């Protein structure tokens, strides 16, 4: 039996992984050089959460999907041009700072406030999704804090699969140590799921979906609430790039036998 769910995906925007990153310190603390002009993408693990949520909406008529994203409006608009073609959702933008250095607790407070104020929000039907870690701060903290603020105590992290059951319960596979999954069954919504990769491939861009989404995205961006994030006493003592340039020995003329012997010696006894 299909369930009418309320799916909220929290997803930030991050620099394209292929970009060179250089930290700089400004009057407001650390950031990235030319951060506002670096090409950005939707946070990869959060994007997996979005695709999983979209599939659940498709399988459960009457369900609704919101994408809640905190970042500078201009960057959000750029990223949504692409993301909006991959799934049908209603964007809830929050105009705020970009990057991994703002404090996660303040980010969570802003997200929770926005979610609680969603029109028609029904916490009892809520599945709160996001990435289990971001590609910026990578702390794995924000989604849990949002869940706590919304009073949700069924939380799962590193999720690769959710299977809804007819009685409203669902099975969750969470990544744990040693390449295994912990299998849990939750009685039903509400719940928080921080997604790892999941099982779905990235959807192809669908221009029709994009056009439909953009009719809602542009007005939402214009009305986006601006927030300032409290540092909560977080102080950056230093921020730097690692210096790990190695003296690489490039071997072009060794035979396979010679390389194999050298590698076996290097591997040593396990």
């Amino acid at each position, binding site marked *: 039996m299909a369930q009418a769910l309320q799916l909220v995906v929290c997803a930030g925007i991050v620099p394209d992984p292929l970009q060179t990153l250089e930290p700089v310190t400004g009057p407001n603390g650390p950031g990235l050089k030319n951060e506002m002009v670096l090409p950005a993408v939707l946070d990869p693990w959060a994007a997996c959460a979005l695709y999983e949520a979209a599939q659940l909406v498709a399988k459960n008529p009457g369900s609704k999907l919101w994408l809640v994203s905190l970042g500078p409006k201009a960057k959000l608009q750029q990223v949504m041009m692409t993301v909006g073609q991959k799934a049908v959702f209603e964007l809830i933008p929050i105009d705020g700072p970009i990057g991994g250095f703002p404090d996660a607790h303040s980010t969570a407070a802003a997200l929770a406030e926005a979610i609680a104020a969603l029109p028609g929000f029904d916490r009892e039907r809520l599945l709160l999704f996001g990435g289990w870690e971001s590609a910026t701060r990578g702390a*794995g903290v*924000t989604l849990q804090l949002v869940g706590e603020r919304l009073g949700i105590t069924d939380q799962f992290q590193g999720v690769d699969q959710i299977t809804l059951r007819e009685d409203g319960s669902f099975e969750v596979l969470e990544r744990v140590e040693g390449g295994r999954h912990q299998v849990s069954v939750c009685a039903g919504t509400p719940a928080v799921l921080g997604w790892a990769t999941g099982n779905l491939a990235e959807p192809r861009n669908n221009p029709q979906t994009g056009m439909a989404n953009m009719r809602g995205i542009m007005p939402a961006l214009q009305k986006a609430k601006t927030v300032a994030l409290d540092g909560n006493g977080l102080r950056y003592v230093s921020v730097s790039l690692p210096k790990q340039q190695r003296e690489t020995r490039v071997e072009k003329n060794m035979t396979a036998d010679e390389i194999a012997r050298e590698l076996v010696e290097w*591997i040593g006894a396990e």
Partner: protein
Amino acid sequence: METILVLTHVDESGSALTKASLEAVTAGVELARQLSAALTIGILGPASAEAANSAAGAVAAPGARLLAVSGEAFAQPRYATDAAGCEALCRAAQASIVLAPGSSRFVRVAAGVAHRLGGFLDTHITSLSSNDCVDATRWFYRQRVEATISREARPWFLLLDAGTHAAFAAEPATAQVEAVDVTLPTTRTTVEGLRSPMRDAQTIRPDAQLLFVAGAGWTKKQPDGQIHVAEAGQLILAFLRLSGASLGSSKSLADQKAEGPGEEQSVLPFLSHMNQIGQTGATPRHAKGLSTCCHGEEPHVVGWRFVGERRAISLDQNCGWTRGKADVVYITDAFQVIAKVNELLQARRS
């Protein structure tokens, strides 16, 4: 004056602390010594008394305490019960700094516990130091930017990455454990157990000396113009079996599973996204790493941040590994080399 609590939990046996927990104990002992602070160790588990003995040596100093929450509710990792248990330990300890291992169990609940205590949490801590104040080091942007941070707000929760401290070792002693009562919440989640997604072999071995990373080149056309995926799979599995290595994968190779025919059809049947190393994958800690058929560009290499000695096999002499990312790069065909390596490892074994 700081007071330090180290949160720990038991392993799957239920009677011993996890290695990561013992590493956190070491960090707590060192930090308490530097700050001349009181140390408390808190244990979460179904029957914590036996596990407490392995940490008893850490609380030998006057004023040190060993707290435990016990009961069947803590036999399985679950947000509602674990958060309640950790919250009770924190309230009993009244610590200003809380250290804990960055295990999947505590990663799931630590932020919620910090919020309940009115505190703040930072995760993936790789080192701690203290002079006038406590500084913690962690990485941002998937191990591409390193920062040292500090906080004035208390309580300050810090989750420590595994492998960053030695596991605490002392002669087991009979511990004086203070039992902490927990008001258990209603549980709506039942943990049914663990499942391995690997159909052919357990290929992820966090404690292995060597990380073997396979790239998409294994599934590309070889000099004879043909694709040899089955042979690639056999060579890789044989290498893992003979060397004891842990298997990593580039994103492009892991993605071939999801995009393959019928989506369930794996290019390499023993590979999943859990093997993925790099920007959108794991950043494991191993003493040595061998990359094969993988370009070694930055999104790959950020997953190698904590791999000590690095070697690579690549057909491309301009690949990223040759630009200061690896110690040795062999410009050759990985099929041939790994087959020879397997022969030598087999001969050594027999």
